């Protein structure tokens, strides 16, 4: 896809060894295109792994903190953390249930090597085979008009099937895998397709009025949507309960032994010392990762992701703070203390502000 991004005038950066487009025209313009109409992102750097074997479900019950037992309808997707033994987050991923002997995982590019090694280590005893789908490109088409536009890439019967997909579900359609998922807080599709088909699809989307969007807009959209970024908001040194990911940890059924379960049960019983919250800056300025957060009479924390939020026209952040932190904090920005309100993410959903 690189020549196309160059042709479209993208500003390119190295992202985990991949040359990725950061922005095409204006990062804010691309952000608004997704909130108001539709945009397309090249997310081919994401690592797609097919997991096959008669005991693949049992393997994933061990590997993932969320419970693949919840996946009963083929095509259904589950968001989960993959933990290490002490309960730290090795990665967050999406897993699709395609058939009883075939699941598909989508993991982060930056953790690819470690994830694959970890999966292989545990897959052997289940007889599960991993195959990385480097033959597939991945496009995310997101926004209120995204599904209708993206459906025009498909033959009529496939388009009808794609438009019938429920949220967080996908299916294979004539060699393309179309899923109603995303990382923006808007409706849309993520499409895995043969690499050779990606450039023509992109051009067709552009011709239908879908804006080319880069990683810059992807970051502001996901942060407004209150979605964590691996490596910023959580990593192997943090556990899900202090990462606003407790909802993805399935301690029920009690009998399911998953990696990291024992330490997480202990934390669930005594309560986590820290929590990941949303911040809305009340003063002028921009919150950035690693700025110090002061919770009066409670303690200190740190911003894990911060930005200017184009939809809200103010700065927002995710911050890890002591569990007892109340409704307001101060953030140290270049030696000054700025006031911020503590909120529960998301900040924006389906184009609308949720912060009041």
């Amino acid at each position, binding site marked *: 896809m690189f020549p196309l991004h160059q042709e479209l005038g993208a500003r390119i950066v190295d992202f985990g060894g991949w040359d990725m487009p950061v922005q095409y025209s204006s990062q804010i313009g691309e952000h608004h295109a997704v909130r108001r109409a539709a945009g397309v992102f090249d997310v081919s750097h994401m690592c797609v792994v097919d997991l096959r074997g008669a005991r693949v479900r049992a393997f994933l019950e061990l590997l993932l903190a969320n419970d693949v037992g919840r996946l009963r309808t083929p095509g259904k997707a589950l968001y989960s953390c993959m933990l290490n033994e002490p309960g730290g987050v090795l990665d967050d991923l999406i897993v699709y249930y395609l058939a009883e002997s075939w699941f598909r995982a989508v993991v982060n590019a930056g953790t690819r090597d470690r994830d694959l090694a970890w999966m292989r280590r545990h897959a052997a005893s289940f007889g599960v085979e991993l195959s990385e789908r480097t033959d597939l490109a991945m496009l995310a088409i997101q926004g209120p008009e995204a599904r209708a536009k993206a459906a025009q890439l498909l033959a009529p019967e496939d388009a009808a099937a794609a438009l019938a997909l429920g949220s967080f579900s996908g299916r294979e359609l004539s060699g393309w895998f179309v899923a109603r998922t995303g990382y923006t807080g808007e409706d849309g599709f993520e499409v895995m397709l043969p690499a050779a088909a990606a450039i023509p699809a992109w051009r067709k989307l552009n011709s239908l009025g879908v804006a080319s969007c880069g990683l810059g807009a992807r970051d502001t959209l996901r942060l407004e949507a209150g979605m964590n970024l691996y490596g910023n908001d959580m990593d192997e040194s943090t556990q899900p309960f202090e990462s606003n990911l407790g909802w993805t940890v399935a301690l029920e059924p009690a009998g399911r032994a998953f990696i990291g379960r024992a330490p997480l049960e202990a934390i669930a019983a005594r309560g986590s010392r820290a929590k990941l919250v949303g911040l809305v800056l009340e003063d002028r300025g921009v919150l950035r990762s690693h700025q110090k957060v002061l919770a009066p009479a409670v303690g200190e924390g740190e911003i894990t992701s911060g930005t200017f939020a184009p939809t809200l026209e103010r700065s927002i952040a995710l911050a890890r703070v002591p569990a007892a932190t109340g409704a307001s904090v101060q953030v140290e920005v*270049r030696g000054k203390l700025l006031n911020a309100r503590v909120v529960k993410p998301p900040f924006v959903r389906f184009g609308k502000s949720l912060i009041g």
Partner: protein
Amino acid sequence: MSNVPADLKYTKSHEWVRTLADGTLEIGITDHAQHALGDLVFVEVPDAGRVVKAGEPCAVVESVKAASDVYTPLDGEVTAGNPRLADVPETVNSEPYGAGWLWRLRSRPGALAAAGLMSAAEYEKLLEAEGG
């Protein structure tokens, strides 16, 4: 192509300096700089009365992505920070050499000539060398 007005002086760190009618100096960032930074969403300018040393960070321009310092090319006393930028920071993007100026400075007479800043032609060469 970046716009590089002929009547201004330039720094290697992409600031420009204009001499106003009353002899004070007006400082901003170049068209090349604003383009490289992208959409600006917050600008912090110095207060009038602040005494600054050449090379000192005096303003901060923040895009969606990152915060960048802007350095004063000359010693002097700040006579004004651009008040407009608190509400309309994107003026730096749309009018980098006009309404998007950052601060004004009173410097010693002759300081600008002595500072060895670049002419427009020299700055254009620098941009070419930087591949921009």
